[in-house]
């Protein structure tokens, strides 16, 4: 019987490629024999645009790379710029950064897990449940900085403003009711036989391949490597907080599910500690040296002119290691602004994970990589 390979183009318009992402799959019946990834539909040349804007003007760009977790994007860039300038933000700012990052991690993982279950076919029920909690987190963000999604909250040297007095009680109230929700989600999602058989053994990524492919985040931890930048290279008060790293064993889609759900629980734990331990104080460092703030210039922190040099700042974003490589030549704008985006690099082993699986599995595997096209394409 003569068979012919069949090339199917998944996307760019497709209900479940999480954005404008195109996979050209070569199928043999239902099995995939080859995969070619076509991206760039959302390329907005952020790295080039950033060279024409001052360091503080670039902070909104970092919201829009990974638009689902804007706070962590802000934080990574601001960390890199602070390394470059040698500025140390005050205590309260560090703790608030931790709080915002963990709230953002919770919201981002809610989306990721919800949409992964949706790819499994559960007709938006898990999404609706998990977005309930994400809405409350976004309400907190709105209280803090006025925006739900593109927060633009961090500044080089601290935060843009302090939290309003109603933030703390609202946050405590939210955290009190989250563990019960997490129990519900774990029961509904992890114990469900259909989800188990749809995701166990699918898209296995061995640990050696993961490290060699520079994969990071829940994908790496799902494969069994306990590497979390919050523990290994702590930034912003993470060294004073007690939490665990969540690791999977098999490296399949189910393990990444597990890791994300467990990380949501750890986020709740971190938040409980941070809300208790946060000190009072200023939220922005005083930056007023002659080299840094020229005269006649609108006030710092807008007019930050770092010394010539370069810095690479990395954080653990919900998708993996988000790093910013910033090179300065002493001018107002960065000389080179490079975003090391986890979603883009996590796509490196996609072909190895997908070849040999069926079309339905390819959708699940892509969902478990948890890409955000803004970050992939920049």
């Amino acid at each position, binding site marked *: 019987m003569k068979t012919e390979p069949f090339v199917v183009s998944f996307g760019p318009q497709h209900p479940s490629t999480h954005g404008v992402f195109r996979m050209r799959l070569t199928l043999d019946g239902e099995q995939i024999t080859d995969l070619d990834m076509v991206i760039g539909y959302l390329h907005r040349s952020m790295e080039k645009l950033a060279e024409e804007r001052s360091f503080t003007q670039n902070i909104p760009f970092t919201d829009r790379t990974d638009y689902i977790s804007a706070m962590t994007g802000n934080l990574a860039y601001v960390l890199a710029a602070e390394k470059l300038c040698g500025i140390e933000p005050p205590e309260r700012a560090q703790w608030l950064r931790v709080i915002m990052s963990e709230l953002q991690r919770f919201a981002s993982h809610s989306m990721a897990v919800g949409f992964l279950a949706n790819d499994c076919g559960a007709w938006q029920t898990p999404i609706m449940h998990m977005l309930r909690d994400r809405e409350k987190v976004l309400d907190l963000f709105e209280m803090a900085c006025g925006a739900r999604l593109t927060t633009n909250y961090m500044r080089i040297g601290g935060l843009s403003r302090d939290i309003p007095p109603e933030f703390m009680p609202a946050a405590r109230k939210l955290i009190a009711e989250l563990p019960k929700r997490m129990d519900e989600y774990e029961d509904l999602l992890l114990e469900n036989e259909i989800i188990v058989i749809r995701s166990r053994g699918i898209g296995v990524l061995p640990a050696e391949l993961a490290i060699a492919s520079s994969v990071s985040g829940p994908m790496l931890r799902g494969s069994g490597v306990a590497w979390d930048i919050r523990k*290994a290279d702590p930034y912003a008060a993470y060294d004073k907080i007690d939490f665990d790293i969540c690791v999977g064993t098999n490296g399949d889609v189910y393990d990444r599910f597990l890791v994300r759900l467990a990380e949501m629980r750890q986020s709740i734990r971190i938040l409980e500690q941070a809300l208790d331990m946060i000190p009072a104080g200023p939220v922005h460092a005083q930056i007023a040296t002659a080299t840094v703030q020229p005269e006649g210039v609108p006030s710092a922190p807008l007019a930050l002119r770092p010394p010539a040099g370069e810095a690479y700042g990395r954080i653990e974003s919900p998708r993996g290691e988000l790093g910013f490589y910033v090179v300065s030549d002493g001018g107002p704008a960065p000389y080179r602004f490079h975003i090391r985006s986890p979603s883009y690099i996590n796509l490196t082993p996609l072909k190895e994970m997908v070849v040999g699986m069926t079309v339905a599995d390819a959708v699940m595997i892509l969902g478990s990589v948890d890409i955000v096209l803004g970050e992939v394409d920049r």
Partner: protein
Amino acid sequence: MTADLSGLDLGQRIQQKFPDAVVDARPEWTEVRADRLVEVCTFLRDDPELNFQYLSSLTGVDRLDHFEVVYHLLSIGRNQASTLKARCHDHENPEVPSVVSVWRGAHLQERETFDLMGIRFRGHPDLRRVFLWEGFPGHPLRKDWLNFPGGQMAGLERFPGEPGGKLEGRG
């Protein structure tokens, strides 16, 4: 805390193994000769004391008369990080050996650097443009792309609101 392995120490270690590979060694980075890149990287990955098995980031910088390819390396086992650079002096058609054979994670990052900067990587299995389409004129992240009048580059001269001459452009 991830220890930043000083470029001086790294430079020394590389110097011991490959006597003429190191061009420059500073605390922030180590610069290696481009043609010895693959050997040095293999050594960095396989040496049990350095153990740089993880390539954090690979990118290029356009320094007007030469290109720099910057490698940020990370050792998961030893929790140390370091920076490696390689220069390429040909500004028209820069070419650097590819490290895909050493770290697979370089695959997509080298494609991106090729696409946006134009640096070709010798030995890359599938070097094509990734964000832009085939036939796109030029490589956008180069400083001389879209040559402005007077040879001026993209950038900012002064802050918005700072008194002075022109706002945009540089050099």
